[in-house]
C-alpha cells in the first residue's frame, strides 16, 4: 500500500494540530542534539588545531611587557600588543642546557590593513632556526617564503596572489593558512627580512611606539623545544632563573586554561543536551500515550475490522516514526544551517577555539542526531504500542453505553 494511503499516514495528516505539536517537539530535540554534538566536536577540533599551531614547548618574552594573563591573550586572542627585547637574551637562552631547538619571532601590529579599521598582528619568524610555523607555512604555500611574501590567517579575506600593504610596504600574499578557530586566524606571518623592513618602515613613519629600536638587534618572543630526556619544567625554571628580565611560559599551560574552560563548556553543553533529550522523551511519551488513550475506541474499531494486535502496535509505531522522522529531519537541517552560518559568531563571542570539523564529521553528527531523535521517539512510543496491542475491543466498546 502506498504510504499516503496507509492508516498511520492519514492519522498523522488528519490531525494537523496534534501532529505539528509533536513534530515541533522532536524538532527541538534534534536541534539540541545536532547543535550540542557539533559544538563539542568543534571545540575539540579547535583545541587540536591550536596545539598543532603553537609547536614550541616554552615561550620566552620580556618580563616588562607581560603578565601571564595578557600573554595568554597574545596567543589566544591575538592581542594586538607588541614588545621587543634585546637579542642578547636570545643568545643567553640558547646557551642553557636541555634545549633541542630554539628560534625567535618578531611581532608588529599593523596600523590599518587596507579595508578594515582593525589592526592585524604581524608575526615574523626566522626561517633558518624556526621549527614552529614553517612546517605548516611550507604546507600551505608549497615553498619557502621569499622576501616581501606573507602568509595570512584564514580569517583575512584576501586572495592568494594579491597584495597587501603595511606601513607603505607592499607585500605579496603567498598563501592562506587553515583555520584554527582562534584569533590567530587574523595574524599575518612573514620571514625575518620582511618584518625587519616593516618595523623599520613603521619607525620611520613614526607609527611604532618603540621609537628607537634596531630591527636587527631585537626579538619579541623566544621559542624553545626541549631536548628529549629533559623535563620541560626543569628547563623552564632554569630559563626563568638565569635569563633575567624575561619571563618563560610552558605553552601547554597557556592552552590548559583554554582546555579547562573548554572541558567546562563541553560538560555544560552535554548536560543541557541530555536534559533536553530526556525532557523531550518524557513529553513525547506522555503525548503518544494521550493521543492513543483518547483514540482507544478508534483502536477497538480497528480491532473489530480485523486488525491484529501486531497491526495495532505497528500503527502506533509508524505514526511515531513518521512524526519523529519529520521533526528530526527539519531539526537537523535547521540546526546545521545555524551552526555552519554562525560559527564565526560563536568563536568570537565565546573566545574559545571553535573550529567546525570536516564535512565527514559534520555528517556523522547529523546522522547521530537523527538516530538519537528517532530512537528516542520510538522508545517513547513502545510502551503505548504494547499497551494498545493488549486492549480488549469487546470491553472497550461495551463500556461505552
Amino acid at each position, binding site marked *: 500500500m502506498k504510504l499516503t494511503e496507509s492508516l498511520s499516514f492519514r492519522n498523522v495528516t488528519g490531525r494537523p494540530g496534534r501532529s505539528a505539536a509533536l513534530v515541533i517537539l522532536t524538532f527541538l530535540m534534534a536541534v539540541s542534539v545536532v547543535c550540542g554534538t557539533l559544538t563539542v566536536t568543534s571545540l575539540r577540533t579547535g583545541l587540536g588545531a591550536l596545539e598543532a599551531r603553537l609547536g614550541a614547548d616554552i615561550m620566552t618574552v620580556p618580563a616588562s611587557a607581560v603578565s601571564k594573563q595578557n600573554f595568554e591573550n597574545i596567543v589566544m586572542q591575538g592581542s594586538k600588543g607588541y614588545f621587543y627585547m634585546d637579542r642578547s637574551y636570545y643568545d643567553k637562552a640558547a646557551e642553557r642546557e636541555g634545549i633541542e631547538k630554539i628560534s625567535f619571532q618578531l611581532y608588529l601590529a599593523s596600523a590599518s*590593513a*587596507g*579595508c*578594515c*579599521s*582593525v589592526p*592585524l598582528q604581524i608575526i615574523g619568524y626566522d626561517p633558518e632556526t624556526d621549527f614552529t610555523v614553517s612546517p605548516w607555512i611550507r604546507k600551505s604555500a608549497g615553498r619557502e617564503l621569499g622576501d616581501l611574501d606573507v602568509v595570512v590567517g*584564514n*580569517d*583575512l*579575506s*584576501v586572495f592568494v596572489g594579491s597584495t597587501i600593504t603595511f606601513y607603505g610596504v607592499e607585500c605579496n600574499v603567498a598563501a592562506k593558512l587553515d583555520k584554527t578557530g582562534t*584569533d590567530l*586566524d*587574523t595574524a599575518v606571518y612573514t620571514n625575518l627580512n620582511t618584518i625587519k623592513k616593516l618595523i623599520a618602515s613603521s619607525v620611520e613613519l613614526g607609527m611604532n611606539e618603540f621609537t628607537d629600536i634596531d630591527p636587527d638587534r631585537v626579538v619579541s618572543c623566544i621559542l624553545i623545544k626541549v631536548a628529549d630526556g629533559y623535563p620541560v619544567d626543569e628547563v623552564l625554571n632554569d630559563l626563568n632563573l638565569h635569563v633575567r628580565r624575561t619571563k618563560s611560559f610552558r605553552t601547554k599551560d597557556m592552552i590548559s586554561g583554554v582546555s579547562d574552560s573548554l572541558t567546562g563548556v563541553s560538560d555544560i553543553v552535554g548536560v543541557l543536551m541530555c536534559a533536553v533529550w530526556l525532557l523531550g522523551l518524557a513529553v513525547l511519551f506522555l503525548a503518544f500515550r494521550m493521543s492513543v488513550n483518547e483514540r482507544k475506541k478508534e483502536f477497538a474499531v480497528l480491532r473489530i475490522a480485523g486488525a491484529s494486535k501486531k497491526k495495532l502496535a505497528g500503527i502506533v509505531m509508524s505514526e511515531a516514526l513518521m512524526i519523529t522522522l519529520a521533526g528530526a529531519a527539519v531539526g537537523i537541517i535547521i540546526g546545521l*544551517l*545555524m551552526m555552519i*552560518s*554562525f560559527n*564565526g*559568531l560563536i*568563536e*568570537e563571542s565565546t573566545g574559545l577555539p571553535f573550529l567546525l570539523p570536516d564535512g565527514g564529521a559534520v555528517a556523522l553528527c547529523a546522522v547521530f542526531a537523527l538516530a538519537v531523535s528517532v530512537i528516542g521517539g520510538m522508545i517513547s512510543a513502545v510502551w503505548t504500542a504494547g499497551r494498545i496491542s493488549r486492549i480488549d475491543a469487546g470491553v472497550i466498546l461495551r463500556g461505552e453505553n
Partner: protein
Amino acid sequence: MKILKQRWAGIVLTALSLFLTIGVKTVFAACGPKEDGSWMACHWAEQAVFASGIVLSCISVMILLISDEKVRLGLSLAVIPAAAVTALIPGVFSGLCMMTNMHCHTVTRPSVTVISVLIAAAALVDVIIKLRSRKGGSR
C-alpha cells in the same frame, strides 16, 4: 483556523521579509563607517540586501492580501529565486570586510543567509502544497 490554513504562507513570508529588511539595517547591520567616515565594502552588501528585502516584503504582502489562488501561486514562485539571490548577496555578489572575524562576516552574512533560506523554503513548501491541492482534490 481556516484563515490560518490559507494565509500561513503570506503571514510567515511577510514576517520573515520584514525582519530581513529591518534587521539588515539594525540588529544584524554590517560594519559601521571607518574613522575617516568612509564606508567599508560590506556596507554596499547591506544596501543591496536592504533593497532586495523591500522587494521580498512587497511580494509577501501581496501574497497575504490577494485572494486569487493563481496569482498567489505565481507570487510564491517568484519569491523562491528572489530569496535565493538575496542569500548570495553578502560575500558572493558583493564583497565583505577583509577579516572574517568581523561583524559583517560573523553576524550579517549568516543572518541574511539563514533568513533568506527560510523565506525560500517557506515559499517552496507553499508552492508544493498549492500545486498538490490543485492536482488533487478528487480521489
